[in-house]
């Protein structure tokens, strides 16, 4: 194992080894990633409008500027095999990993048919049975949960070929849960891929008030895990580096951490205008929009034409409209018919008949 601090990223070429071990060519992989980026952006623009129109209960939290990182991860992971624990800014990764748009619109709009049935909202959603655990708001706390899922699969003899991935931001790296979770995963040498999207601001707090190391990727060495740095605004770089991290985890080389540098192109939530982000930070290299970069890379490399992309935009806008309209037509939760119990067990239990301790099936 050991630490691999790939600070200078080789410029990726499309004829490099395949990004995934699956059936997708690099060309198809990049088209797939880009579609998820586009789908997330268009969906989130719609969510923002709905929020501003007062149609959404609670907050709206966007992944704008983080789509290249998130979608690359979600596309490279294998649905039905791998685990993906998304965080607040992973709409693109969720979409890429197969979460239906309706899960998003139903949860934001409070439809009882959504996976959270109105009991939780916005980005607090998932399908744990399908390898998408549901985040809580306490940052860093999904790391050990994914580690536990992988640990269980090892005990059950079904870990081979699986990886588990989760995403955090720069802010979460300051939590005890983050430290405990990575250290535990490293001790157990679990196939965990940890994406740190360093978007430079934790809510309003800039990096220099969050950590004092020169680069967060240096922490990988301390944990005894693989470490990669990548320009999170560069789709080709993300595709190259994130897939390599996943490959190493899948090969049994233990946890891999990827620190992606980028800028959050929104407020913390749509209630926040991010006035605290200095103009020079916005104008900096990392302030560029990963979607524009990706579009240019696809066109320049002959992976997609501008016309195709326009058609995709129209198609996705239509999909998004349908997902919003359907969720809006659906029934909200009914407090009079809500099952107001937090326990799966229904007490009182019957008196046991036998003195023999129960043998579980």
């Amino acid at each position, binding site marked *: 194992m050991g630490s691999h601090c790939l600070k200078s990223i080789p410029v990726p070429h499309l004829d490099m080894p395949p990004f995934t071990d699956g059936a997708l060519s690099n060309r198809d992989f990049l088209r797939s990633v880009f579609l998820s980026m586009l789908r997330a952006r268009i969906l989130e623009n719609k969510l923002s409008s709905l929020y501003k129109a007062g149609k959404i209960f609670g907050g709206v939290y966007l992944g704008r500027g983080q789509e290249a990182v998130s979608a690359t991860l979600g596309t490279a992971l294998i649905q039905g095999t791998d685990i993906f624990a998304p965080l607040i800014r992973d709409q693109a990764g969720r979409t890429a990993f197969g979460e239906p748009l309706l899960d998003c619109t139903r949860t934001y709009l409070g439809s009882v048919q959504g*996976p*959270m*049935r109105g*009991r*939780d909202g916005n980005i*607090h959603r*998932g399908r*744990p*049975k399908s390898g998408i*655990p*549901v985040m*809580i*708001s*306490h940052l860093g*706390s*999904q*790391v*050990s*949960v*994914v*580690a*536990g*899922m*992988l*640990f*269980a*699969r090892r*005990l*059950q003899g079904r870990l081979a070929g699986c990886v588990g991935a989760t995403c955090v931001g720069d802010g979460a790296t300051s939590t*005890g*849960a983050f430290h*405990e*979770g990575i*250290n*535990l995963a490293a*001790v157990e040498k679990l196939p965990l891929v940890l994406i740190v999207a360093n978007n430079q601001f934790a809510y309003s707090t800039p990096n220099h008030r969050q950590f004092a190391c020169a680069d967060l990727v240096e922490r990988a060495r301390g944990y005894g895990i693989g470490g990669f740095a990548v320009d999170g605004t560069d789709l080709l770089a993300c595709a190259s580096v994130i897939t390599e991290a996943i490959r190493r985890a899948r090969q049994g080389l233990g946890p891999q951490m990827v620190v992606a540098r980028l800028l959050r192109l929104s407020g913390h939530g749509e209630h926040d205008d991010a006035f605290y982000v200095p103009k020079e930070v916005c104008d900096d290299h990392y302030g560029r929009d990963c979607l524009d970069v990706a579009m240019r890379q696809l066109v320049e490399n002959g992976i997609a034409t501008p016309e195709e992309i326009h058609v995709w935009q129209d198609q996705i806008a239509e999909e998004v409209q349908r997902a919003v309209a359907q969720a809006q037509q659906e029934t909200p939760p009914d407090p009079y018919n809500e099952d107001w*119990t*937090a*326990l*799966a*067990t229904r*007490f*009182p*239990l*019957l*008196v*046991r008949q036998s*003195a023999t*301790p*129960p*043998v*579980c099936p």
Partner: protein
Amino acid sequence: MSVTYIEAIREAQETLLRNDPRVFLYGQDIATFGGAFKATKGLAEMFPQRVFDSPISEDAMIGLAVGAAIEGLRPIVEMQFADFSSIAFNQIVNQAATHFYRTGMPIPITVRLPSGGTAGSGPFHSQSMEGIYAQYPGLVVLTPATVSDAYHMLIDAVALDDPVIFCEHKFLYRWLKAKSINGDLLPIGQARIIRPGKHATVVAYSAMVHEAVRAADHLQQDGWNIEVVDLRSVKPLDIDTVLASVARTGRLLAVGEAFPWGGVTAEVVARVTEEGFHLLDAPPQRLNARDTPVPYHPKLWAAHRPTPESICQALRKLLTF
């Protein structure tokens, strides 16, 4: 031939590991060392790859257990001391306890908390956390007071689909012995009248059950017949058994070892007042630890928690109201 409370807990874990392939044990120093209190002695050798030492990471220990439960396993996590579960508080109350309500998928984990005070243990190895966890929806909180309950309730805890906080009392570990683990096999959620009486009801749980029985035995010499109810489970709380007892005695004293502000005794008194005010012949009373950290010195510690003497005193006041 006798069985101690801690041996019962060890036996239960052995039974669980033997009978249920979904069960594994995770905690600090529990494998080769057998646990700080030897609750897992020998189990790592008997069940290779089922008993694991964890790093000193209470938060990640529960996170791991939640993840394992999502994947279909039934982990038992040993906190070295209940006090240290404060580090895992977030994962317990926010991750594990909310999961079923939010997603419909239950999280069957059992968190063993070596709880309560012993002489010389001081502020950070003596706490009683049951009231704090019981406050949160989505948790079952168990407080066995007998050897039989320590065994059977741990077996039951693992069978439950919900996260269980299993508060085992450190003072009872080696002090409490029984002829065997056989008992009355009450289900979780049912309290036990451990000593029948007619003049007053003492509601207690965990180690305080034994202190209450001693106090009751003492008052017997003066002709008072004190009924002692062992809650066994503080959540769910069997208020029906408590109300039925108060209906017979007309007087209530709730005794707990936890800090006095709120908590289990306050809940018992509130519910009896709410649902059984007409049954009471005297104002219901509570007796708890003092409102300071648990002190180190045995003399201070003995005066910090309820004792048979202070329970007697509280009962005399209640009986002569």
